[in-house]
Structure formats: structure tokens, C-alpha cells
């Protein structure tokens, strides 16, 4: 990489940090318990809106993994999400008045909060419908992974988004609060992903899965990106560029090995495709606050109304992380 290019990336990073600072004026603390964050605590950051139904399981799952403190940005929920969050003893909540789209889909808010609270901590950034799976997660807590990453001098950990879906129409199953969404949405696509390298940011751009197969079969280029780097040993100077797909400085995007070996990686199981999706799709289309003006939601809406299902005869039924490892979706790397 030339000097000019690296300087350009530095400027982008500075601009994003300034932007985050500017957007931080939209954040109003509802419940700030960040004083209780101890050195070495595992932090989780999340922006959300009207996700009350998902939260009980979300909390159960991540507390189980060993997350110590949740830093949540509520973007104008109407369903009691904010009250629920404020009641959780291990949570700090901010209310964001601004527009989701104008805060670059929440990234600006979180960049600010991470800069302020996550410096020196392992920081996990997920959506309320994303569930982190990593090697040995059924027998080792998240701190085992982060301790190991620390001693291995690895600063960022990749976890590709894996879209999970039920067999049959999404409306057929009613998701109940507190339920494990993957009891219903337990199917996934195991081997239809395309990968391309982004020469500027050095990250891999991964697309595919059921969304590319069904919703974007005629326009695969528009299919959503699945590559994510959600777990990072945070430093003040870092910024996420676009969701958790891209991060700067760009060395943090080098979560893959190009000399033939495998670096360790995990998965984000994506519980988006449930009966809750069609309401969400309608609502989000109305609000017009999503990426590329909700192109994705337009397609969902169109397809949800038709009889097309995501499930196919080669869909794989989820068992555990070892299965994902054998299928080649994630890797243990040298962690044994």
C-alpha cells in the first residue's frame, strides 16, 4: 500500500471519528452504569429499535457467554424496549433521538461509545438478532477466547453472518419471547458463498446464503454483505466504517490467512428470518431508514407475499459449532 493510500485511510478514520463525536450529541443517557465496568470486562454494544420480544433470549445468550456489560443504544422504541434495558443491572442505555440512516445505521453512535468506554476492552458489536458462535463455545466462555487471542497477539476476530431460517413459510411459526429462535430457524446454507477481496480496506467481501439464493437470484451483486469483524480488542483510535463489515485501521480486517492456513473464526447466527420479519419489513419500508433505502426490505416484502420459501432440499440443519467447522464455514485455527 502506498503512502498516499494509507494517508487517505487515515483521513477517513479521522473523519469518521469526528462524525461520531458530532452524532454523539444525539445520545442521551437513560441509565449509565459504566462505572461498574471493571478492567478486562467483556463489553457488548448494540443499537436497536422495537426489539422487546427478542431481548430476553438475547440477554440469556450473551450473559451465558460471559459478557460483563451491555452498552445499548435505543433508537426511539415504542414497545418498552428502553424500559426493559434500563431494568437490567449489567446494562447502560442511551436514547438516540436522531435518524438511524443519518447516523450511518447506528455506527456513528456506537463508534462514539466504544471510543469512550471500550478502550482496552474486548468489545463485541452485534445486532439484537445476531448470536455469536465461536470454537468451543459450548465448553469455554468468551473470556477463554479473548485470553487466548490476547496471548496470540490477535486484535480482531472474524464472525461471518449466517442466515438461519425455518422450514416452510416464515409466518407458520410464532416466535415467543424468551424462546431460542434457532429452535425454529434452524436451517442454513452451507456452501454457496462468494468471496472477493476489497483491495482498499483489505477485507473479504462475502455474499451468498439464502438471501442471495432466493431474494437476489436475479441480482446477486446486490445481495447483502455477510463478512463481519464483531469482536475487537478496542482502542480509542479504531472506527467501524460500515456496520461491523469494515473497520479501520485496515490491519484489523486481515482476519484471514492468505498463505494457505486458516486463522481462527466464528459465526454470527442470524435470527432475522422469523415471523417477526414481515412486520419489520413493512415498518422499515415505511421509515426508510435502512441501507440503500431498504432495498433488502423491498425484496423481502415482495417475496414474503409470494409463496417462495428459503428452505431447500440441501439446507443444512444446525447442530453445533463443530458442524460449522467441519463444513468449512468457520475455523479453530491453531486453538486446540
Amino acid at each position, binding site marked *: 500500500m502506498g503512502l498516499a493510500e494509507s494517508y487517505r485511510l487515515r483521513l477517513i478514520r479521522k473523519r469518521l471519528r469526528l462524525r461520531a463525536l458530532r452524532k454523539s450529541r444525539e445520545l442521551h443517557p437513560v441509565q449509565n452504569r459504566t462505572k461498574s465496568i471493571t478492567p478486562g470486562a467483556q463489553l457488548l454494544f448494540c443499537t436497536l429499535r422495537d426489539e422487546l420480544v427478542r431481548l430476553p433470549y438475547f440477554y440469556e445468550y450473551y450473559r451465558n457467554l460471559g459478557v460483563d456489560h451491555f452498552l445499548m443504544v435505543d433508537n426511539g422504541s415504542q414497545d418498552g424496549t428502553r424500559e426493559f434495558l434500563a431494568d437490567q443491572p449489567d446494562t447502560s442505555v442511551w436514547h438516540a433521538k436522531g435518524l438511524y440512516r443519518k447516523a450511518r445505521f447506528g455506527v456513528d453512535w456506537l463508534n462514539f461509545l466504544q471510543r469512550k468506554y471500550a478502550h482496552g476492552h474486548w468489545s463485541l458489536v452485534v445486532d439484537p438478532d445476531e448470536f455469536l458462535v465461536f470454537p468451543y463455545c459450548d*465448553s469455554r466462555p468468551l473470556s477463554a477466547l479473548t485470553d487466548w487471542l490476547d496471548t496470540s497477539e490477535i486484535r480482531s476476530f472474524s464472525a461471518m453472518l449466517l442466515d438461519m431460517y425455518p422450514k416452510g413459510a416464515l409466518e407458520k411459526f410464532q416466535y415467543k419471547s424468551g424462546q431460542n429462535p434457532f429452535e425454529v430457524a434452524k436451517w442454513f446454507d452451507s456452501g*454457496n458463498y462468494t468471496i*472477493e477481496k476489497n483491495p482498499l480496506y483489505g477485507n473479504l467481501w462475502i455474499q451468498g446464503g439464502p438471501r442471495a*439464493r432466493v431474494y437476489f*437470484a436475479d441480482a446477486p451483486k446486490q445481495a447483502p454483505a455477510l463478512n463481519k469483524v464483531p469482536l475487537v480488542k478496542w482502542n480509542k483510535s479504531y472506527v467501524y466504517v460500515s456496520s461491523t463489515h469494515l473497520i479501520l485501521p485496515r490491519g484489523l480486517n486481515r482476519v484471514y490467512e492468505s498463505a494457505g492456513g486458516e486463522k481462527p*473464526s466464528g459465526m454470527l447466527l442470524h435470527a432475522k428470518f422469523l415471523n417477526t420479519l414481515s412486520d419489520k419489513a413493512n415498518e422499515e419500508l415505511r421509515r426508510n431508514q435502512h441501507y440503500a433505502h431498504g432495498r433488502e426490505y423491498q425484496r423481502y416484502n415482495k417475496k414474503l407475499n409470494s409463496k417462495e420459501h428459503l428452505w431447500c432440499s440441501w439446507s443444512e440443519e444446525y447442530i453445533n459449532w463443530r458442524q460449522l467447522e467441519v463444513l468449512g464455514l468457520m475455523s479453530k485455527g491453531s486453538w*486446540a
Partner: protein
Amino acid sequence: MTVGVIMLVHENLHRAEQLARHWVAGGCPVVIHVDSNVPDTTFKPFVAALGDEPKVKFSTRHRCEWGMWGLVAATLDASQILLDNFPEVRHVYLASGACMPLRPVQDLTAYLDRHPDTDFIESVSTAEANWAVDGLEIERFTLRFPFSWRKHRLLFDAYVNLQRRLRVKRKIPNGLIPHIGSQWWCLTRETLSQILRNPNRKATDRFFRRSWIPDETYFQTLSRRFARNLESRSLTLTKFDYRGRPHVFYDDHLRLLQRSNCFVARKIWPRADKLFDTFLRTSNDSPNTTEPQPDKINRLLAKASERRLKGRPGLAMQSRYPSRAAVRSQTAGHYAVFVGFSDLFEEFQPWLGQTLETITHGHLFAPERVEFANDATVYKGAMSDSAQVRDYNCGCFLRNLMWNSRGTHQSFHYRPFDTPKAYLNFVNDPHATIVIISGAWLLRYFHSGADISEMREDIAEKQKVERMYLRAFEDNTSKAQVRIWTLADFLTDRVDYMRSALDLVQPGAGQAMHSMPNLVDLTGFGAFLEALKNQGLYQKRVGDYKEDDSAPAQRAARPRPYIVN
């Protein structure tokens, strides 16, 4: 007689306390060295907590930085205290706060009782050792290393380079032969006393103080000098990963560790509660005399390093994306590409399925949709048959197909009607076998029965496409196995050529072939070629085609229009 334990501790003192009590309960006196970097606020309560154990002593604190002299100084001091205070000690075991006794302490004492004069210390001569990851072998001794590798990496490297340029070569003191080995040893009182009482100790210490990672060389070198009976192995199971960092054990390694029969293992993750609870439980079983068998653990860890360094061939994913130069092939298994065969033979695909051990796909790169085996609309790995999805990234498509079907051989067809540049993804793949009957695609136009003047432009264009990929296939740099026949050539001895084509794909398959697929009707093809030529389209790649070459047996069935696809 018993074993005395030296524990070097620098963090997780609550675990160190548990471990010390365990050793003492097993009858072993313990001398603990706590790194002077540990603040007094942590150190003092730790000392107080162990105040009720008369068999636990604390040694003078040194600053222990990895790779530096402090660790050796600490060990020497602690050894002195241990030997002076506990005359019943015959063997001294060096351990850390992350070293877990896997077997009852009685097992270890019994084992050492059977080897009363043996020193267990890994000690390999630098002349033969390929031991270190850092590449510094004899230079560990002959250069000076005053700078910390962890904190001042640049200075460290610069000083090493400077000394190399100045050809610095420190003299190794009187008659010592440099040896390297694991830091964790178990020495006899006699050997250790001699090391402590060494008349040249001052000079020796001065020399090692500036050497690199002296904790892996000091005792290893000196015990060679003093030991009566040295076994060059450590009783502590320590495994390093591909970058020289110690492997860590977790709760889920419990069974593996139990079955290894090793006396002590490191490093144990400090929060592995189950391991601490299980192994620190005092047992009253009669001593077990089995030898350590760490093979299973070795295999597991070797596999882990291989996964990190080599990975799974043919896999591309979020954390493995090999560059072209890094790997021999980007695909997971062998496959065959048939070009022209499906145009020349009727029902070629089912015939191929009966003749070869292979999954027979159709034209994977056909313009309308992907022709997966058995006409599936979705295939292994949930691959879509959408032509757009496939053409979005043909390389990933092919790699995915091969990865999803790893363990089975695949075959598919290719011709000029297919995605034009798709061939670039297999022409250089050593896993590909490409067999070609050039010019055979013209039969499709021939059988369509359309007017030549209408097809003219189309044919010219496809001809260009064929020329392009044939050139690539014929290129010497192509890593695929390639065999090309012209249509005319192939027809002159088609049974033999078919055999050699099959043999190329799967050795022996040609000999085993017991039937030939039927040729399509070729009557009039010669005239068709002639007409093309008259229109200015000379079909060089068909070869020297003569009407008589076609199979007489086929003639009975005509006339009938035959349209491939």
C-alpha cells in the same frame, strides 16, 4: 525422601495458593517465588494466606521478564532456600503457577523413588537442535541480549544485527557445551547443589546474564556438566504452538489430560475450574506406576498447528483465502471437463455416469441455468442453479461445488455456448483433466437445420470463443491435464481415443470401458462444412474432415433431425 517444589508465580495468585497447598498436602515442601512486578497489595495477602503452612517458604523477589535473567536468578535463590531448609528433599521440581499436577503427588514421588539418581531435564545440544522458533541457536550464547524482546523489539533486533555485523562472538566459559531445553525440570539434590556451589559460578552467571532466554539454557547446560544420570526429557507436559507460545488447557481437555498419565501439565487456563477441582482433589488411591503417554495430546496439538499453517485444501472462507501463489490448487478435488463430447455422442452424460466413477453434471456454465447432475435445481451446499448467481463469480462457484462434493469425482461439460470466460477458472487447476474434441460444437448448428447465412455471424463468434479457450488449454503453462483432438481426428479411431480420454480422467477406466455411446447423425456434415467454407468460414479446428469417416452403423437410422439440447 521426597520432592521439593519451586513455584514461579506472577499472576493468578489464588490459583498458586491452591497449587501450593496441593503440593504440601502430598508431602512436598514448596518454595514460592513471586515476580517483583506483583504489587505488595496482592503479594502480602498471598503470603499471609499461606502463613499456616510451615512447609511453604518464599524466596527473594526478582523482576522476571520473559527471556531475561531474572527467572534464572529467582530459580537459583529458591533452590538454595529449598535445599537449605528441607533436608528430606532429594529431587527438586521446577513448576509455575500454571503447572497442574495431573496425577496424585504420591505417583510422582514413587516414580522418583524408582529413579533416585536421575535428573529429568530436556537438554539438547545446540549443534543438533532445531529447537527454537526464533532462529537464534548458538547465537543465543555468543551474542549479548541486554534489551527486552517484548518491550524493545526494535532495539533488540538492531543490536542483534549490529553484533552480527561486528562479528561479536562471546567466549563460552571453561568447557561448557551449550544446551537448550524446556524451562521445566526436575533435578536431584546432588546436581542442583553442584550447580549452586559451582566454583566458577560468578563467571558462569555473568555469561548467562547476557545470553538469550537463559531459563532455557542455564540449567540445561550446567546439568550436562554435573549430572550423573541425565534423562533428556521434561516430566512436565508443555506444548508450544507454531509460533512458540505454550498451548493452554481448558475444562474440555479433562479426559485427554487424565488419559495422558503425565505428572504435570502446563499451561492451565486460570479459570478452568473443572480442571482445578478435579486434579487438586487429594486421592488415596495406591500409587499408579504407568509411564506418561502424551501421544494423544501431541497429535491434537500437531493437528491444530497444521490447521493454522496449511488449512484444508480447496477451502475458501472468512478466515482462509489463499492467494494463487500460496497453494497448488484452489479446488478440493479432481474433476474432468468434457468439451465437445456431448455434441458428438447421443446420451453421452448417462453413458459417462455408467462408465466412470464420477458425478456427471451437464453444462455447468450453460447460459440458461446451471445443469447440475440429475437436473437438480439446487445442489449440495444449497447452490443455486441461477445462471446470474453463478456468473457473478464463476471461480467461487466452481470452488464451492468442489468443496461441497469433496471426496467424490466430478465431471461436467463445456463448450463455446457457455459463460465465455469460465474456462479461466479451471485451465490452470492441477485438479482438472480437460479432454476436448475441437469443432464438435458445430454439430449443433448443423442439426438445427437453419440456413447457413442466418447462422453465419453466430458461428463466427463461437469460433472466436473456441479459439480463445483452446489457446489457453494448449498453453504450456496450463497446470491442468489437457488432451485435444480435432473432430476429424477423433472420428478416425474413436474407440481408442475414447479409451485414452477416459484413462486420462481416471487411469484404468479406458480399459474397463465395454461399450461406446452412439454417434449423432453425421450425414451431410461434410457438405455443411464445405458450405461454411464457401461463406468464408474455414473451420480449421474441425480438422481434415471427410464424409466417409462417420460411422456407417448410424446411417440406417437417418434421416431424422437431431438437435442437441
